[in-house]
């Protein structure tokens, strides 16, 4: 009932008859197929070196930590060193992302790795981002068994691995990369665009980190220069 009443009111407000005017409909269909507005800031449309420098500068501005690693095999060691430097428990949880499956986790002394969705008492989650966006220093995380969303939300420390060659200039390019990477244009349940750790300014206007989600965010940039 409500549905037809709302559509009738909308069409009356727009002064269009029900189902009429093919031109209007064609205009909307064309936009849905064609993509609409594309006003991408020039700051992201730069060469690789500048793009990665911009990405890093935004990570610093938002208070995220940065670790650079040349080879994936070094990831467990780099993660352990990060946790040790901050006196955090040497325990992480990952999803079933193929990148993590092949790594020598057991070779790093003292480091425990669990798998699956986050538990309430997990201290550190590790995810792989499908892309990093230079224009604001944003990570794009796709939900699913490879990288469960809860890993990015429940633990106090969130560590995100992103390949250097997945750092793109703008959000639009990140979507194209995600589509290629996921092998489908169908979106996952969530695409989480993360730009720094959880924060709030709701008490007295001062920014406090760790409102409900992670208190700290570490980005591991993976791959040679």
């Amino acid at each position, binding site marked *: 009932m409500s549905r037809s009443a709302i559509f009738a009111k909308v069409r009356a407000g727009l002064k269009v008859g029900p189902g009429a005017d093919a031109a209007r409909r064609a205009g909307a269909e064309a936009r849905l197929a064609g993509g609409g507005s594309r006003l991408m800031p020039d700051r992201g449309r730069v060469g690789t070196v500048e793009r990665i420098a911009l990405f890093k500068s935004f990570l610093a501005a938002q208070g995220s930590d940065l670790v650079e690693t040349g080879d994936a095999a070094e990831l467990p060691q780099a993660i352990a060193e990060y946790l040790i430097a901050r006196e955090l428990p040497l325990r992480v949880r990952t999803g079933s992302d193929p990148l993590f499956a092949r790594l020598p986790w057991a070779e790093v002394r003292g480091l425990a790795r669990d798998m699956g969705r986050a538990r309430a008492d997990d201290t550190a989650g590790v995810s792989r981002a499908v892309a990093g966006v230079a224009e604001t220093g944003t990570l794009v995380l796709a939900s699913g068994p490879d990288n469960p969303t809860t890993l990015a939300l429940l633990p106090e420390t969130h560590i995100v691995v992103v390949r250097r060659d997945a750092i793109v200039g703008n959000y639009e390019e990140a979507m194209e990369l995600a589509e290629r990477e996921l092998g489908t244009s169908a979106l*996952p349940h969530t695409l989480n665009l993360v730009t720094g750790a959880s924060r709030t300014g709701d008490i007295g206007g001062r920014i406090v980190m760790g409102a409900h989600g992670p208190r700290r965010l570490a980005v591991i940039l993976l791959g040679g220069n």
Partner: protein
Amino acid sequence: MRPAASPLTGRSAAALADARLQRALADVPGGFVAARARVKAALPEFEALRRAGRDIKDHALAHLDLYLEAFERNAIGAGSKVHWAATAADACDIVLSICREAGARLVTKSKSMVSEEIGLNARLEAAALEVVETDLGEYVIQIRGETPSHLIAPAIHLSPADIAEDFRRRHEQLPQDRDMSSPAALVAEARAILRPKFLGADIGITGANLLVAQTGSAIIVTNEGNADLTLTLPRVHIVLASIEKVVPTLSDAWTLLRLLARSGTGQEFTAYTTLVTGPRRPGDPDGPEECHVVLVDNGRAELLGSGLREVLRCIRCGACMNHCPVYCSIGGHAYGSIYAGPIGAVLSPALFGPQAAGELAQASTFCGRCESVCPVEIPLVTLMRRWREVSFAEGATGWSKALLRAWAYLARRPRLYRVVARLGTSVLAGLARGRGALSRLPFAEAWTRYRDLPAPQGATFQAQWARRQRREIP
């Protein structure tokens, strides 16, 4: 949630006299203004984005029926259930029936203005559900039994000391002598209190900053991550959104998102921007099993055909409030509506009935700062002026009508106008007795209480003009 009945002037006077409120308002909106200026300066495309944002919303509104159909089709395709609510009561009924169907007891919510508009919490609580607001500012005003006083900073009217008092009262289970001296301590306390609520909730209700027709997605932004916890952990996710939130494509959404945080908090981007599309997919280890989208009209469709369509462009960033000299003086509650500031002065009478229009449209100096910062270029001053016209036509006070009629009479009779103007000028100059300004004026004490009226200097404008003309033309 209708606007309070007490007159605006009374509430404004009370707000101006409230030292605690004035202290709370002293810094925060100004901080947003400075941050916005910084990020705007860092993005040369900002003004072009504002124009693009305006065009996207105008296009979306002109094709709203078609994009709503497309959104519905694609949301259903992604596994969501789509519900339509013509009125506030319908929307509450739908949400309540989803809660009952799910056998829910505990409901977590992330910030949603439309839920405030429809009075959802009261309705759910009356049905014995526990409803917990998870945005920190919303949590604070929920435990105080208040409404938000700002679109994006709902507890902006409170100081950390006020909030500490509320937490002490509310969180009785915690030690009385705990440290509550810093915002960080208060945030940590709220985190510890709310975490079990996130984990135990049966249903999570979020708003939506945007709906994307092309994909059937909702886009939700927060800095706290509370919307993500709210929509990821419970078994059922409900998106509550008003119909004008729909935009055609993801590309259109990026343009608007580039404007939203920069205009509101003055951030480059909010910490969490989430595209959520349907429930969890088969094989997903987390996420809700059901996703419901409740699309609320509640008076918006009628605005499409009115002279107020442009107000539906609003993306609820709060920039107009932060930049408004009136809002920054009296705060949000004085407006008597959950939609305060310039956008509230236009939107509230449109949604809640024109009886409040006259009052709210007076709560502006028409300085135009709101328009100049609006990310979608809503002509707020023009729209407020429209409400002033409506309220004047429908019953301006006898006084203002008589004065305007007297002025109109004089304006049509130049010779008489000159005589009266000359008389008025000399009377005012006489009253000022050479001091250059009048600190008190008979019949206008309310005006002169806060400022002086400059006294006329010399002859009237017309007399000076006439003299100058005589000199120039030999």
